[in-house]
């Protein structure tokens, strides 16, 4: 059943709030000139607290979420979110503090940030960190901005940035925001960066190289050191998109591979929930030569006191109003303190084993074009189902009928009819077995009764939605006049 919008539930003069009395005798119209004052009130609904809660609980019931079931979205690292974080995240000592408070009144919060910086620096092998970016793409923005300013500061205008054709869309989009031309190089037969292709495009114009490692095919870039040497030979900078850091924890570090900048997705690797699309946190780590480019302020410690340092020589400035998403950092902090070195290693191990296990279970029906050095995720190809008139989209929608979220589909672009599957370390063998069983069943359905897939989903709050109609008859807000 469709749920009416909250606007259709409004009843004139119904209230859902209480406020203290003002107790000061004055009126707005006595304070301000009439021409400034709003005459037509915005059409905000008038509902009770019960109306409100019921409405949003009814909506919540229509979502798939990690507590409900498996969420194998490739590149998104949908792992379980520990409940302890929900308890701590509402402590007033963390939620009711203002960023302009005197530093001696926020020492506990600054300590969280400082220690998280230290721990992430250790995990990544980077020299220093900024936690200011609030999303992966925001971290990328900060990183590419540092690349831009690094070259500018050296008095040169570098206009080109290299990345493989398997890169996330945010990589070229971020580069374009800096007026840089994207040089996309083809991946080789193993799904890795082709060193020869890098050599061919190498020039004094190259600002840097953006690489995801393991890459979006789930493949570890074994030639990363050679790539770094090439890029560094023209004083370009190596950027690592850290979306897939989960696979490396405790075993491998971007800092040891020649990367100069890496962004962290705290909302992926470090267990903080995705919030239906955010907030996340996308702090960055940098190598020695870029420490003086970090955004201001940087959290530092002097003896026993934590403080905000605004004196950063070549700082790119600010990328956020204040210090970034503090509450998200707090969750990652707790997670890290509970895991330590041994816990992080177990994360990487189980993420990689789960992914390889699932691949082994599925590849008979879902061919995986790139299987060498598969880490935490793999990309299957659904092309063979085309002969039954079935597309990857249909497979994805059919999965919803079985209570699973679908994998990431049609990405990366270099695999046709791609299904990008990332189980994460928190899922059990039983869940993976169930998922594999359903996937194999769907493969059979595709051959025997493809209509089942084309009509999917049926067991969901709505059946397949018409996206073309949504664009053609654009309706992006409630029509009060209708």
């Amino acid at each position, binding site marked *: 059943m*469709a749920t009416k919008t*909250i606007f259709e539930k409004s009843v004139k003069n119904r*209230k*859902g*709030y209480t*406020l*203290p009395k003002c*107790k*000061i005798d*004055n009126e*707005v119209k006595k304070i301000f000139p009439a*021409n*400034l004052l*709003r005459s037509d009130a*915005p*059409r905000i609904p*008038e509902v009770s*607290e019960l109306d*409100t809660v019921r409405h949003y609980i009814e909506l919540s019931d*229509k979502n*798939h979420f990690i507590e*409900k079931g498996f969420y194998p979205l490739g590149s998104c690292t949908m792992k379980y*979110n520990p409940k302890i974080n929900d308890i701590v995240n509402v402590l007033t000592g*963390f*939620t*009711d503090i*203002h*960023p*302009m408070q005197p530093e001696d009144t926020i020492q*506990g*919060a600054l300590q969280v940030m400082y220690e998280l910086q230290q721990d992430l620096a250790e*995990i990544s092998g980077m020299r220093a960190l900024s936690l200011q970016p609030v999303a992966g793409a*925001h971290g990328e923005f900060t990183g590419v901005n540092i690349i831009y300013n690094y070259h500018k500061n050296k008095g040169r205008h570098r206009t080109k940035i290299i990345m493989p054709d398997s890169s996330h*869309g945010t990589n*070229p989009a971020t580069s374009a925001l800096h007026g840089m031309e994207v040089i996309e190089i083809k991946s080789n037969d193993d799904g890795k960066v082709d060193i020869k292709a890098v050599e061919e495009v190498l020039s004094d114009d190259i600002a840097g190289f953006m690489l995801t490692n393991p890459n979006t095919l789930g493949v*570890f870039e074994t030639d990363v*050191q050679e790539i770094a040497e090439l890029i560094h030979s023209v004083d370009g900078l190596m950027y690592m998109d850290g979306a897939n850091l989960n696979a490396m924890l405790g075993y*491998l570090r971007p800092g040891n591979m020649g990367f100069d900048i890496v962004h962290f997705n705290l*909302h992926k690797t470090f*267990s903080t929930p*995705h919030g239906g*699309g955010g*907030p996340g946190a996308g702090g960055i780590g940098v190598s020695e030569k870029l420490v003086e480019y970090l955004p201001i302020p940087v959290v530092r410690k002097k003896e026993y006191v934590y403080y905000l340092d605004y004196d950063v020589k070549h700082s790119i400035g600010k*990328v956020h*109003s204040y*210090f*970034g998403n*503090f509450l*998200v950092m707090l969750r990652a*902090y707790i997670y890290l303190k509970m*895991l330590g070195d041994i816990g992080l290693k177990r994360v990487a191990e189980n993420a990689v*084993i*789960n992914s390889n296990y699932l691949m*082994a279970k599925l590849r008979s029906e879902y061919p995986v074009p790139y299987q060498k050095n598969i880490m935490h995720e793999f990309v299957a190809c659904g092309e063979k189902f085309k002969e039954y008139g079935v597309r990857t989209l249909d497979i994805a929608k059919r999965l919803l009928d079985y209570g699973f*979220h679908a994998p990431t589909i049609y990405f990366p672009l270099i695999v046709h009819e791609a299904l990008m599957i990332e189980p994460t370390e*928190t899922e059990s*063998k039983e869940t993976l077995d169930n998922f594999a069983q359903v996937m194999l069943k769907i493969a059979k359905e595709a051959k025997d009764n493809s209509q089942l897939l084309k009509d999917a989903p049926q067991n969901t709050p709505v059946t397949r*939605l*018409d996206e073309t109609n*949504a664009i053609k008859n654009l309706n992006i807000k409630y029509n009060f006049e209708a």
Partner: protein
Amino acid sequence: MPFISNTDEQRTLMLKEIGVASFKDLLKGIPSELFIRNPLTLDEPLSEFEITKKVQALASQNINTSGVVSFLGAGIYDHFIPAAVSYVIGRPEFYSAYTPYQAEVSQGTLQFIYEYQTLICELTGMDASNASMYDGATACAESLLLALRHNKNKKIIISSLIHPHYKQVIETYIKPLNPEIVYIPQNNGRIDLEKLQSEMSDGVSAVLIPSPNFLGVIEDLESLEPIIHENKKALFIVATDPLSLLLFNPPGKYNVDIVVGEGQVLGSKQNLGGPLFGFFAVNQKLIRKMPGRIVGATVDTNGQKGYVLTLQTREQHIRRDKATSNICTNESLCALAATVYMVLMGKQGLREVAEQSTIKAHYLNDKICRIEGFEASNTSPFFKEFAIKTSIPPSEIISKLKHKGYFAGVDISKYGYEDQLLIAVTEKRTKHELEAFVYELEKLMEEV
């Protein structure tokens, strides 16, 4: 090991099925010199009980604004938030879901975003809203990037009364595209209209006006509009506090092209300044130029109403280097908090919040200006925040009153507003608190 389900026995079984003897075999081919040789230098793992104790201790080291009387603002405000807001955003159905890529199992998220977009349009008087940005500062920056892309002009004009942090973020964002950036000085707390007029020329891409501005003053949008739009290509952008729109004419009424701002006042706590969220609304002609996600209504195969992410060809995952922005993850859960907050407070409650804040702010301003040694920094109309010129350094006032249980305001001397203290008042401050604060200020000045 916490949060991992598989047992050692299961791992052995799984490795066997994969066809390898050990986990290390799965890493074959990765150069050995890349591996970390020693354990990472991290603390010994803590149990849930131990970490809880540790973070509770850290929380108690912070002085929180519920234990003092706070007049801190500068973009982040201490407004009341009903319990039902925290309840709804605390539901795992919302907070542990991913971006609604599979619409059929994400109708909860998609419908609230549709409602959110509607509410933002109602407040701002604009035609369309996206699903949220990172914060007010980046929303401002992205609005200018939109303008630079839209009309290809190179001159950006910004009121000097913009939040100084927003100014820094904007410069970081747009400087790589080499625009000419001009800041228009103030005249009695408002942008200097004559100076603005003199800077308007054919090459202007956009004019960004904060209202309320950094000093809390409401700008005269009615007078600004013809000056800016005299140049047909220039976009008129307003950055605003959404609560102010309950009292003052919405920017949409004055032909504004883009309205952006910080949404924290709508149901998010102060959170040391994050998470926050930015809102972004445009007029009809700019819808397809907007950054970020947009939700649209449609129908399913049975003709039943449903919601999907729409106009996605603007976005990075499809358009890559031609996208309108690189934004992917946004601040969706804060937009949910804003939606539930607006709905709960409703038409009357929201207005009451805005009225009480402004009435209390004016009451306090009057009282403070009567104290010898304090005077108003300007005489223009302000919303819930105002700047006071002080005869002793604001830092001294802040430090002395901190010991009396007050966060007296923000010292804006460091931003070029010499000897000025920025004071914000929300509906949460009581008349008694305001009077007690005035008493402390009087005493302080007598001691000087």
